[in-house]
Structure formats: structure tokens, C-alpha cells
């Protein structure tokens, strides 16, 4: 009898591409229409104090980016949680899981394939939304630069002043910093998808998985504050055991405050490459831990 590979990237890819096709044929990309309408509405938005303060051009671009990236974060988290929570229970309910696991498919390959399929969907969605945002932001920035130049001519700005203004406006346009922010949105979705995968391996329903994942998502935004408050409120210093316990809790509830670079990128602030790399490593760590735990639960699960 031939030996079956314990872990096969080719098989994972087959399951991932099938999962992606499954989700696409569920017409999930219809949301792009909603996103496009939202983007167009935001691009026509003008500040109430428009043209009254010097930085109003930047503010308009920030509103556009904030709306778009807020929607991107919402859609990606929604897809990551809902799609992952739906897939395994549906396979079990339809008994398609029996036909897959009765083939020489290790359970680890099945889990990773499903996760990878959802992540491909989130990545493609973010790329498409990023494309739309970049196009609209580019044209809006060009338009506002022309307005600034017209202003300079009317008000008789010096060449240095004009250059500084143009640079300030351009910094709020399509930049690598903005791409780093979108990367952070993807990282956050990756963590949530792997967390939802872990929950779905022991949960009894899709609804339970979604509710628990959403609760952990919100808790993840307060983990750091809660930990700092609690550690500082301990009189007489913190014992080694307490520190280990808080670190353990930080593993269960991911610290999403670390992903706050998204807000900085919306404001056009530069993100050091070191911080972005650390965030990528942290994401891999969280996703890896949750995937391994999901495998431990799933490998002996009975159907």
C-alpha cells in the first residue's frame, strides 16, 4: 500500500480553490457593489467647512480613506468569521465531509484547505476594494492638487509654501503607507478566520461560532487596556505566575490594539517597516497557534 503524505500542499490547494469557488458561487462578491456606492458617496463628500481652513483638502481625503478602510475592515472580518463558521458545519450537515474524509485526505489538510480558501477570498476582496479605493483616491487627489494650485495663484503663495501644501495633500493620496494599513486589515482578518476555524471544530452550530468569534473580536480591542489596568492595580508588584496567566489570556484573546496602525495610515502617518514586519510575524503566530489547536480538536472528532 502506498504511503500517504502527512501534509500535502497540493491537496490543501485543491481544497482551498474549491472553497474559494464555493464562496464565489454563493455570490459573495455582490458586496463590491455596496462598496462602490459607498466609495462614490464618500468621494462626493465635502467638509462643511470646506475651503475655509488650509488643510481641508487633506481632511476630505482622510474622510474618503476612513470610509473605505472602515468598510474594508468590516467586510473582511465579516467574511473571515461567517465564511469559516459556515463551511465545516455545512459539510457535516450535507455529509460531503464523509465523502472527503473517506478519501486519503488527512484532517490537517482539510482544515488548512478550508482556512486557505477563506483567506484567498478575503485577499481577493481586499485587492479589489483596494483597486477601487486607489483609483478614486488618485483622481480625487489630482483634483484637490489642482484646486490647491489655483488657490496658490489667487492668494499669491510663495513657491515653497505651494510645494509644502502639494506635498501635504499628496501624502494623503495613494501611498505605500496606505497599502500597509490595508495589509494590517488582512492580518486582522487572518487572525479572526483561524480563530473562527478553531471555534467551529468544537462548536455545535454556525451561530454559536459567529457569536463567540465576534465577542472575542471585540474583547481583543480591550485586552491591552484591561491587562494594564489589572496589572497596575495589583499592590506589591506582580508575581511570575500572574504574568504567565496574563500572557496566556493574551494568547486566547488576541491583542487587536497592536493592529492600530490602520488608523495611523488613514491619517497619512508613516509606518516604520519594522512595526509592519512585527505585525506580520505576530499574525502568523496567532494564526499558527489557532490552527494547531483546531487540528488537535478536529483530528479525533467523530462523525
Amino acid at each position, binding site marked *: *500500500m*502506498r*504511503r*500517504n503524505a502527512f501534509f*500535502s500542499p*497540493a*491537496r490543501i490547494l*485543491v*481544497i482551498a480553490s*474549491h472553497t474559494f*469557488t*464555493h464562496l464565489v*458561487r*454563493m455570490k459573495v462578491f455582490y458586496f463590491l457593489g455596496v462598496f462602490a456606492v459607498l466609495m462614490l458617496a464618500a468621494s462626493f463628500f465635502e467638509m462643511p467647512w470646506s475651503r475655509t481652513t488650509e488643510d481641508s483638502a487633506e481632511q476630505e481625503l482622510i474622510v474618503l480613506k476612513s470610509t473605505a478602510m472602515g468598510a474594508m475592515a468590516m467586510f473582511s472580518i465579516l467574511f473571515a468569521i461567517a465564511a469559516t463558521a459556515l463551511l465545516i458545519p455545512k459539510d457535516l450537515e*450535507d*455529509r*460531503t465531509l*464523509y*465523502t*472527503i*474524509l*473517506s*478519501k*486519503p*485526505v*488527512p484532517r490537517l489538510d482539510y482544515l488548512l484547505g478550508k482556512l486557505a480558501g477563506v483567506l484567498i477570498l478575503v485577499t481577493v476582496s481586499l485587492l479589489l476594494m483596494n483597486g477601487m479605493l486607489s483609483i478614486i483616491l488618485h483622481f480625487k487627489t489630482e483634483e484637490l492638487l489642482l484646486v490647491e494650485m489655483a488657490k496658490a495663484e489667487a492668494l499669491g503663495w510663495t513657491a515653497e509654501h505651494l510645494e509644502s501644501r502639494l506635498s501635504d495633500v499628496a501624502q494623503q493620496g495613494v501611498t505605500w503607507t496606505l497599502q500597509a494599513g490595508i495589509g494590517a486589515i488582512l492580518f486582522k482578518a487572518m487572525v479572526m478566520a483561524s480563530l473562527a476555524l478553531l471555534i467551529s471544530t468544537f462548536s455545535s452550530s454556525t451561530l454559536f461560532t459567529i457569536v463567540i468569534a465576534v465577542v472575542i473580536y471585540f474583547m481583543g480591542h480591550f485586552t491591552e487596556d484591561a491587562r494594564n489596568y489589572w496589572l497596575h492595580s495589583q499592590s506589591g508588584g506582580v508575581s511570575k505566575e500572574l504574568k504567565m496567566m496574563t500572557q496566556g489570556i493574551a494568547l486566547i484573546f488576541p491583542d487587536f490594539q497592536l493592529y492600530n496602525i490602520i488608523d495611523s495610515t488613514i491619517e497619512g502617518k508613516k509606518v516604520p517597516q519594522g512595526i509592519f514586519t512585527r505585525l506580520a510575524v505576530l499574525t502568523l503566530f496567532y494564526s499558527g497557534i489557532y490552527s494547531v489547536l483546531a487540528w488537535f480538536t478536529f483530528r*479525533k472528532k*467523530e*462523525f
Partner: protein
Amino acid sequence: MEDTPAVQINNLVKEFPSPFRKTKIRAVDDVSLTIMPGEVYGLIGPNGSGKSTTMKALLGLLRPTAGSCHVFGQNSLKTDSRQEIGFLPENPYFYKHLSGEETLRFYAKLCGMRGKALNNHVDKMLEMVSLEDARKRRVGGYSKGMLQRIGLAQALIHEPRLIILDEPTAGVDPVGSREIRDLIVQLKDKGVTVFLCSHLLEQVQEVCDHVGIIFNGKIVKAGPLEELIAIEDQTEILIKDAGPRTLARIKAVIADSENADFVSMGKPRTTLERLFLDEAKKSQANTMTTEQKGGDHA
């Protein structure tokens, strides 16, 4: 002939926890059975007797509480054992968004098939289950019989040596049911081992050469079908075109015999299924002839 059994189940016990009781529910109780390569084994029993649980244990979908299951000598809990198994679950549902062809391609790829071999196998399987015309149609629109047939095709896509069928004709009309039975016979002729679970006794009798009867999780009777159903002290003689005189002489011979007793005499009957299939064939042929005549007339 190969010596390693295709299926070897040793003292299998499977218990499930009961939600509101301390005691566990024993679904399978000390079941042992051996299926040699090339045999068609039918496990029969009423609903809830432990047939599906036994199959799931053999597929590694359930872990035995006690005992063990082996497929061609390999423990069924190991993924490797599944290389030799094709499985059709009871009332299978496949991904509705895929067409018949895409479904087979997906399962073939899971088994590691690629390129030309994959294309050839998919075509061969679609032809075998007579679904070539429906290959591009979404599985969501398939009838019950078509679903069973595509299920059988996916089970056979990697040319396994053992095929496990859980109620393969459940809910299928007599014509579809006959087609599935013919496919099982074809597999048997090719030397594929078949493990069949059913509570349709006539179906099992027609295709199986070994049978096990399971009740409340226990095998109560098992062995070669012919041995199990033969009535040892009776003999059946079928005579064609025998007149009343011939029959009377036969009766007289039996009456003269010292040990033999006459039991019954009558005309053998066809089955309702055979009658239905013959009539279906005839009306299909009539419809085709009428259509052809209409066409010629036009």
C-alpha cells in the same frame, strides 16, 4: 488469490454517551467479520441496528471503543487505509454549486490524480454511470437516482480495491435501483470487493455472495449466502412445458418413494420488480417507435 483480507473487523465495540444517563449506548457490540478480496458482502439489519456505525468505524470516521478494523491489513484509523476505499454514504449530497464533471474532478484531485489520467478517469466514470449528458449540469439539479450514480462514480474515481456502499438504492426508483445493482455486479466481475449495507433484503440476495445479519449491534448470523438460505432437506426441480400426465407421473414416483414427501407444485412467479422493468422497457420502446413513425410521416 490474495491472502490479506480486504476487511478485517475484530471484536468491534462502539459506545456513545447518553446525554441524560450515566450508562452509555452500545451501538455495536463485539462485531467480528472478515471479507476476502473479490467478495460482495452484505450487512443486513433493521434501522438502528449498527450497520452505519460499523461502516463509519471502518472508514475511520468513528474511533472504536474496543476492537479494531483493518483494510487490506492497514488499521482503518490511518489515512493510508483510505487509499484502497471508495465510499458512498446513505442519501449523499454533494456540493450543489459544482457540475457532475467538476464534482468528479474535485474528488479525483483529492486522491492525487492530475493531468491526462484525471481527465480519462472522469470521462470513464461518467460513462460508466451514464451521466455523460448531465456532466455540465449542476449537481443541485440532479434527481435522487442521478445523485446516487454520481456518488458511486466519486467512490470509484481512484479505482479502489474496496467499495463501501451504505444503502446505495435508498429512495431510488426501480429502474435506477436496477442500474445501481448492475454496476455492483460489474464491480464484482472486475474483482472489486464490495461491502454493502442495506435493509432491502431482495437487493442483497441478488448481488451478495456473503451475508451478515446484525441486530441490536450484534452479528446474529453470517456466512455464504447460498448456505444460509438453502433449505437442506428440500429439492427444487424446474420443468418446462410439462403436461398434466407428466406431472401426475412425477407425483406418483414421489409417492412410491420411501423417504421423500411431496410438498408443493405450482408455477414459478416473476418478481413485481421484474414485471415493472419489463413493462417500462416495452412502453419506452413503444414511445420511441411512435415518435419515429411520426417523424417519418412528417
